[in-house]
């Protein structure tokens, strides 16, 4: 049995190790054109900033692949012959498989303007972008970044750290407020501006201007403002990377359509991670998840299914985290969704650099949001599953703290505030 996995990101690699655990004798191949070894994509920014070398971002020692008998193929897949069960490769002829996992991840969204291919315009997704960035910063004194998500602020931090003047254009009124509740969004916006980065809300990029020699010279916003710059970062989100499947019989929607065991419409072909669109049969919208953690969880389930175990994907309580400059962020459960009956208890440190939000309904707690403070995953998750009432959560909030020893305690402050509000 030969399992071919297209993509060596977290999903592909998690699936590969899972299959190896279950099937010691199968042949497993990991194919990637981007890098020989699996690396941690979220760590790209640290390579550029000089916190780490590329080798530090590889979660496994190089000897691991041979020990686990996982064959690494450095090549691009150019097509899939599903009836013949073969992959077309760019450098090699082709590769026969018995089972196939498509784990090609995402690709950055394009802004769709003519000048997008000017030198100095780029996104930040993989190693090629890092390579381009090294070239582009040579010429960069002022940068404009469009897109108010996690990659946008990462790119802002990277450029700002080089002493480059950065302007961040976001279409929302304050940073990432589709995801962050208003107070937290305001806190991050404040942090961005404190760094000396210009944050312009309610604004989209209308046009990228040529400086006359094929490089970026500036941008025009939809408010009519012209901003001179030598670099434009386009970080307006990602979409499933499914170009590879264009001429195949594998069904696609926005992503590769799969059931909740990651089977596609074609037998023995599976898809998981960012590129997969899980079809929901209960009339709810299909599920596309594009964060590291879901990639890992999906890879684990897909790997088990490919290895012959019957499993279905149950993502469980949502969680995520990020860091905005020096401000850490963690979320557990449902926050900022405006659900019926939703109530919020929000505490913010007077210094404006830490906050805790507890979201609850009459049935119990449904979500936690931590800024500048750390929450304990297992505890928050358990309380949400057990639908603990707010009073219980407040009483035991110390258990949910995950800040380092001697750090300023948040639980007593939250309790005190809750008591004052009740009085």
């Amino acid at each position, binding site marked *: 049995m030969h399992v071919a996995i297209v993509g060596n990101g977290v999903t592909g690699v998690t699936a590969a190790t899972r299959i190896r655990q279950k099937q010691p004798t199968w042949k497993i191949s990991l194919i990637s054109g981007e890098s020989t070894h699996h690396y941690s994509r979220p760590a790209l920014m640290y390579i550029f900033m000089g916190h780490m070398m590329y080798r530090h971002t590889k*979660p496994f020692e190089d000897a691991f692949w041979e020990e686990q008998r996982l064959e690494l193929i450095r090549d691009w897949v150019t097509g899939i012959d599903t009836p013949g069960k073969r992959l077309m490769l760019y450098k090699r002829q082709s590769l026969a498989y018995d089972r196939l996992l498509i784990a090609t991840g995402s690709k950055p969204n394009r802004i769709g303007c003519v000048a997008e291919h000017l030198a100095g315009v*780029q996104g930040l997704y993989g190693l090629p972008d890092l390579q381009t960035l090294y070239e582009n910063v040579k010429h960069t004194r002022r940068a404009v970044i469009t897109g108010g998500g996690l990659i946008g602020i990462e790119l802002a931090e990277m450029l700002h750290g*080089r*002493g*480059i003047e950065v302007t961040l254009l976001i279409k929302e009124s304050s940073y990432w407020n589709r995801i962050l509740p208003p107070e937290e969004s305001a806190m991050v916006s404040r942090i961005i501006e404190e760094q000396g980065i210009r944050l312009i809300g309610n604004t989209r990029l209308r046009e990228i201007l040529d400086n006359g020699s094929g490089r970026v010279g500036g941008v025009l916003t939809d408010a009519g403002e012209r901003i001179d710059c030598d670099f434009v970062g386009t970080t307006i989100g990602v979409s499933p990377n499914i170009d590879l499947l264009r001429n195949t019989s594998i069904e696609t929607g926005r992503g590769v359509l799969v059931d909740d065991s990651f089977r596609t419409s074609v037998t023995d072909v599976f898809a998981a991670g960012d590129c997969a669109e899980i079809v929901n049969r209960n009339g709810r919208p299909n599920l596309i998840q594009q964060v590291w*953690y879901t990639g890992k969880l999906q890879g684990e389930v897909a790997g088990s299914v490919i290895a012959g175990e019957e499993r279905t994907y149950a993502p469980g309580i949502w969680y995520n985290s990020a860091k905005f400059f020096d401000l850490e962020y963690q979320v557990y459960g449902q926050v900022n969704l405006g659900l019926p009956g939703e109530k919020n208890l929000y505490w913010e440190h007077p210094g404006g650099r830490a906050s805790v939000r507890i979201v609850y309904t009459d049935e119990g707690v449904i979500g936690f949001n*931590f800024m500048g403070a750390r929450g304990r*995953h*297992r505890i928050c998750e358990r309380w949400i599953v057990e639908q603990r009432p707010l009073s219980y959560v407040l009483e035991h909030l110390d258990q949910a703290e995950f800040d380092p020893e001697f750090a300023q305690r948040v639980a007593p402050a939250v309790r005190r505030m809750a008591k004052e509000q009740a009085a």
Partner: protein
Amino acid sequence: MNVPSSPLIDPQTIGYVFDEEHTNYEEPPGPSGHPTHPVAKICAAFAAVGALVLTVQLAAPDLAGSWVGFLAGFGLIVAGTSGYFWFCYKDTVPGIKHDRIMFSSTMHQGIIGWALGLFLTGFYMLLYWYPEYLERAIRLVDPLALALAGQPADQWFFYGFLYTLAIVTFGVRMFMKYRHSRYHTIRTSSVMFFQLGLAFLLPQFLRKIGEPEFYFSYFWPLKYDYLFPGTVSYLLDTPGTLGSFMVGWGAAATFVITPVLTYFFGKRWYCSWVCGCGGLAETLGDPWRHLTPKSTASWRIERAIIYTVLVVITATTVVLWLNTYETSAWLDKIAEPMREWYGFYIGALFSGVIGVGFYPVLGTRVWCRLGCPMAAILGILQRFFSRFRITTNGGQCMSCGNCTTYCEMGIDVRAYAERGENIVRASCVGCGVCAAVCPRGVLKLESGKTHKDRYPGSDRPLGALRTALKGVGICGDKDGYV
């Protein structure tokens, strides 16, 4: 680097050529970030003037030995260096400050790093084996030695003085660099206090009042001669009760205080809060913490060496004691050579010349990682008989590698964190930097309510120890670790 035609990655970017394994990832071209604070530059100039003042006194020994010369030299260096660090970090937002470390010649094995390594190694060689060449330098600290100890400086006073200066000035750097984290500021205060008070001022004061020079913060087997029969009888023979107290303290520290505190707090109570060697590594050594090798192979080497040193010092101590009771020609023949061998090869060459001299090349804590027998004992206690663990926060790890990169003890922290496992490793000194650098808040150093819930099998520590000793542990891989 080679630039692909399209910056966006999709299957069309097939022309993409990049040897990511062999690229140097040097400093990106273009602007180089934020300029140094002007006052920091002035402070650096002050430190340089201080160094010049000392150089003049070295060249003209008649000028050396005065308070004026001492203060103008060392005072300016300490104030200048501390001020430099202070102002470098002053206007930055508190948080992790690791920008450009990998591009730095000083911090990332560049020419300056290698030169510093050679300088430190050379200094230790002179100190241990050719102190006569340091004679003029030693005279520079006479005023302080006379004031503190009532006698002129010798090479060990000189060394202790420089050591303390390094911990204090680089301690200021730690305060500023980690000022967002109270764990680090309190821990740094602790190592500064123990070095300055218990490992410098107190022993010198004891000399002044005619008592034995005793270091209350160092114990056997790190301070190996404290349980040697020669030292014990010397202390017991000292007039007054203080000598006997010192013997009692030394024995209690090794056999009672160490296991009890390690059970409750882990190895860190000593290694990164009290110990002078740890203190130097946590302050002066901090700029090189990421250089520590993290491979399974280096871990294997570390274990082989550190436990050998432990066996050797234990054997030496036992032989020396046997030799005081038994008079056999055979023991007579080996006891003294063993003591001398250990003192030369381990006490001087390993712990000093290599153990500190190689910081800028092999990463900080070379001695603590590879050689210290005290660390070996604390490590076994921590691994099997302690409540201490680094807890992994559920599934939040995204494998970025900051924790592993900045672990000064060479632990592949990420390997545990990404699997959601607690980190329970013999070598962990509990410095807390992994938890601080984690951008996702995944790690927390803590002592649980019990030792039983740390890893599968930790409810039966003796069983776990037995399994480890059977061979898998000390020589095995990540799943049968010590």
